[in-house]
């Protein structure tokens, strides 16, 4: 097969069928923008959930009678638990200082003694800040000698877990919907463009062109359309986030992460969409009788 011919034919849409070329590229761009903005929103929401989870830590209060040796032992045992990232000791004096900061009064002067126990603040590793795993760690810490009581924001974690699951399912549903409509939309636009050329396809078959010979330029054209649509969509997203960053005068990229490889994914998805769209469409018409 002649590469020159295929390349020439593949790019001929720019010259011969400007309107349908534009329609296909525009459809790919619109679909990708929709998909990308949705994905960015999803990641954004997910980072809010994650930052809420970051706030969850446990506090294990210690027996007042604990000795220095037992303290070190208890600490070592907590640190040894799976899922524990960091253990920080809060002495009775520090607890009183925190109390004073929170309530504005010195507990020693109110009660004449300090009832606040010393404690370990326990930070959990990523992936362990779920209600199920936190409950497991809670039970393990509670069983350790020297630990009197342990608190953490159980309800908050349960709420996050529940909502996050629901949120994920809804998002997944919307994502699938957008993805399917994009494929249908792109395939349909390309199909209309190819439909307009079905007489030409039949004539080519009549002259003795093989299916591959007819198909390849169409696939190349679909790929180019998708690639272009992807490049435009990536360009628009890049520009929009640049502008937003400027206007909001804050580091948007910290909050909504648009990683450089994202742009590659957008362009790649566009190319695949275009290729798939033309593959599906050409299949339909290439099998038709040439005498229609």
């Amino acid at each position: 097969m002649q590469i020159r011919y295929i390349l020439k034919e593949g790019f001929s849409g720019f010259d011969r069928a400007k309107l349908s070329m534009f329609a296909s590229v525009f459809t790919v761009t619109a679909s990708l923008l929709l998909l990308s903005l949705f994905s960015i929103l999803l990641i954004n929401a997910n980072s809010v959930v994650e930052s809420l989870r970051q706030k969850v830590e446990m506090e294990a209060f210690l027996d007042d009678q604990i000795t220095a040796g037992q303290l070190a032992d208890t600490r070592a045992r907590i640190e040894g638990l799976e899922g524990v990232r960091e253990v920080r000791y809060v002495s009775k004096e520090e607890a009183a200082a925190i109390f004073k900061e929170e309530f504005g009064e010195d507990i020693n002067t109110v009660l004449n003694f300090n009832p606040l126990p010393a404690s370990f603040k326990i930070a959990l590793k990523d992936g362990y800040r779920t209600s199920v795993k936190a409950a497991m760690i809670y039970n393990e810490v509670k069983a350790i000698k020297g630990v009197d009581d342990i608190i953490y924001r159980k309800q908050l974690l349960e709420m996050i877990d529940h909502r996050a699951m629901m949120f994920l399912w809804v998002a997944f549903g919307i994502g699938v919907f957008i993805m399917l409509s994009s494929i249908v939309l792109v395939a349909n636009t390309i199909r209309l463009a190819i439909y307009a050329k079905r007489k030409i396809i039949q004539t080519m078959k009549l002259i003795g062109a093989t299916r591959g010979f007819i198909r390849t330029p169409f696939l190349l054209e679909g790929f180019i359309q998708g690639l272009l649509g992807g490049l435009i969509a990536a360009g628009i997203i890049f520009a929009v986030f640049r502008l937003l960053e400027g206007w909001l005068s804050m580091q948007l990229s910290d909050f909504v992460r648009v990683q450089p490889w994202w742009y590659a994914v957008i362009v790649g998805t566009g190319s695949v969409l275009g290729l798939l769209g033309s593959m599906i469409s050409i299949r339909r018409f290439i099998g038709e009788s040439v005498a229609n």
Partner: protein
Amino acid sequence: MIELRNVSVSFDDQRVLDGVTFSLKRGEFVYLVGQTGAGKSSLMRLLYMDLMPENGDVRIAGYESRSITNRQIPHLRRRIGVVFQDFRLLEDRSVYDNIAFALYVTNTSRSDIKKKVLHALADVGLSHKRNHMPHELSGGEQQRVVIARALINEPVVLLADEPTGNLDPTSSAEIMDILTKINMRGTAIVMATHNYELVKRYPARIVQLKDGKLIEVDKAPGRVARSSP
């Protein structure tokens, strides 16, 4: 070179061709006549294998309907030229590219393509319109481009399905002159028509389709008698 043996074709339980037997030798010219709907186009489709017979066997240019594969059909079509009433030009490209397309598919080199296309255009008297788009040409000119394209791969047979159906008498005569010239050079021609005026003016073998049967009307008239069966 063309042989149909006891070929039958039906559409929606309606038998269009019923046990048709027919043969054509190299270099022969035959008119296929019959009323609209008599099955002329179906017979043509059998020949370029867009339609497969229910019964019987079609042999053309070394291929057989029983054994031909989908992959071989394009190769068969390169060995036969097809001309239609509605021209079937590739509307999105120039006259030159229309003819060149038939050579692209056979992987001809660029320099050969140029030489052959310019030669073919000269043959049908359209060298000066090589860069025109099909819609800029008259009906007669379009049909000449189609003929040039059909002949560029030097087919053994040219199938012409009502080639003058959409043309005025002057253009029709031009097309007939070209077809006769081609036939003189040794290309066999099957021409479906119901223009009896033309058949009278350019006498050749005539077969008629009637009620699904093929009848030999005139075996060896006129100047092409030498190549009749």
